[in-house]
């Protein structure tokens, strides 16, 4: 019997023949992420007077292929904050596990101090910056929403470089071009947040998701919608786009197989 640690957990040579060690090679180059593989598209979020509304569709694309149509891209943290993930889905899953671990560690403190949305955003931005500094970035653009230490609505973004940005409305990816102008009509500045009701904010976000579905070829008509307020989080993961109207499509020319 071979007791060397190298042989642990491997088929016995005397029973199965010599093991092909070429499978064990570890001296190849260690490759860092050069580009995302399976991706999620836009995340949109808008502040209203009592909290924040966020939405992201349930699609994970493999290039231009709509590969997975049931991937939830908004997660909750400690029942007080939400994180929306745009970009690489495997990195999202890594961050998801990491955040679960963080929230468990945090819950082990005897007195319940849970990280608020501001703390969570700071932590994630540091994590993303740390990874980009190792030249092995987590290929995501995150939106973090919840309440800050004073109980006021909080919304901020962090990207794969660790860049942070905060605004009454935010969107990642295509949404930054298509949804942001719509949302900015309702909350151009921090003051106007106090005038926006929850119902109106939800309506605006749903409208944005519809526009994105019309114009973003990597999007889906089924999406997740989360509302975070001081009373907690309402996350519904199987929303459907309603009242779609493709009448405008008639007028679009110059793409695809059109000949006229």
């Amino acid at each position: 019997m071979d007791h060397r640690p190298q042989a642990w957990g491997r088929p016995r040579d005397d029973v199965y023949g010599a093991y092909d060690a070429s499978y064990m090679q570890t001296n190849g180059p260690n490759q860092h992420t050069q580009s995302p593989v399976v991706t999620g598209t836009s995340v949109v979020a808008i502040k209203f007077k009592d909290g924040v509304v966020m939405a992201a569709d349930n699609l994970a694309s493999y290039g231009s292929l709509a590969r997975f149509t049931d991937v939830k891209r908004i997660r909750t943290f400690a029942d007080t904050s939400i994180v929306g993930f745009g970009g690489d889905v495997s990195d999202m899953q890594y961050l998801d596990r990491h955040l679960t671990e963080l929230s468990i560690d945090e819950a082990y403190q005897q007195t319940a101090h849970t990280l608020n949305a501001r703390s969570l955003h700071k932590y994630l931005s540091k994590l993303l910056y740390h990874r980009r500094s190792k030249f092995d970035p987590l290929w995501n653009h995150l939106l973090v929403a919840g309440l800050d230490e004073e109980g006021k609505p909080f919304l901020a973004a962090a990207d794969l470089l660790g860049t942070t940005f905060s605004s009454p409305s935010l969107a990642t990816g295509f949404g930054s071009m298509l949804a942001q102008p719509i949302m900015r009509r309702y909350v151009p500045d921090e003051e106007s947040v106090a005038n926006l009701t929850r119902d109106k904010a939800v309506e605006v976000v749903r409208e944005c998701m519809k526009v994105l579905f019309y114009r973003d070829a990597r999007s889906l008509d089924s999406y997740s919608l989360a509302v975070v307020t001081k009373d907690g989080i309402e996350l519904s993961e199987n929303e459907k786009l309603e009242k779609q109207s493709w009448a405008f499509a008639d007028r679009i020319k110059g793409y695809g197989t059109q000949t006229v």
Partner: protein
Amino acid sequence: MFRNNYDNDSVTFSPQGRIFQVEYAAEAVKQGSVVVGLVSKTHAVLVAIKRNAEELSSYQKKLFAVDEHVGLAIAGLTSDARVLSNFMKQQCLSQRLTYDRAMPLETLVSLIGDKAQLNTQHYGKRPYGVGLLVAGVDETGPHLFEFQPSGMTQEMLACAIGARSQMARTYLEKNLDKFAACGREELILHGLRALKETLVQERFLTVENTSVGVVGLKEPGKKGLEFFKVHDGAEVKDWINSLTNDTEVAEEPTEEPAAEGSAAEGSDSMQVDP
């Protein structure tokens, strides 16, 4: 002939189940001059008697600010306290850097608790020879914690450690019910009265030997913070005056700052901590 063989290191139990090195470290705390801490619903206060090693020297600092929201008072070896204090400052800063928040008090105190406990379980190490009172305000309000060289930490409503601290504790126990509802000034005066109890005859609280540290909420129930600040010298004058006013005994406080020095206060013969 018969020496105690069980006190050479901090890893060997005596047959009675004691670890003498840790108990000796606790004695070092009793040699330090007294510090008192107490909390109300809105504030946490630390008060301390400073000593000067000799007439010509300055007074040894007893209160340290750790962060905006935390401060500590020390009794025992000052140099050991500085190590712990620097460690706490770093931990608070890193918490602000990575989470953008004030370090929760309990987390901070358990960090130094763990750090000190390691020293009682490793051969060749010695326990810290200092006791701390850590006062601060976090998300859950004002807190006071006691830290001992054994690594034991406890949340306290009021506490006193150091030479003759039993006298202060007696005062604190007697007045415990009043503290919670106290305002800032009242709480400081309670602290100073407790401190005064520990003084030997012919010794007084003076602007030279008294330190007051305060941290609290600006308004009850609100988030605004009055940062931890140490008051020394002229800043404590009014408090000391109002203290001498409320004693019926019309003793004139002679402005004699510790003529016979620290030796008397810390001597073994004194009745400290049964």
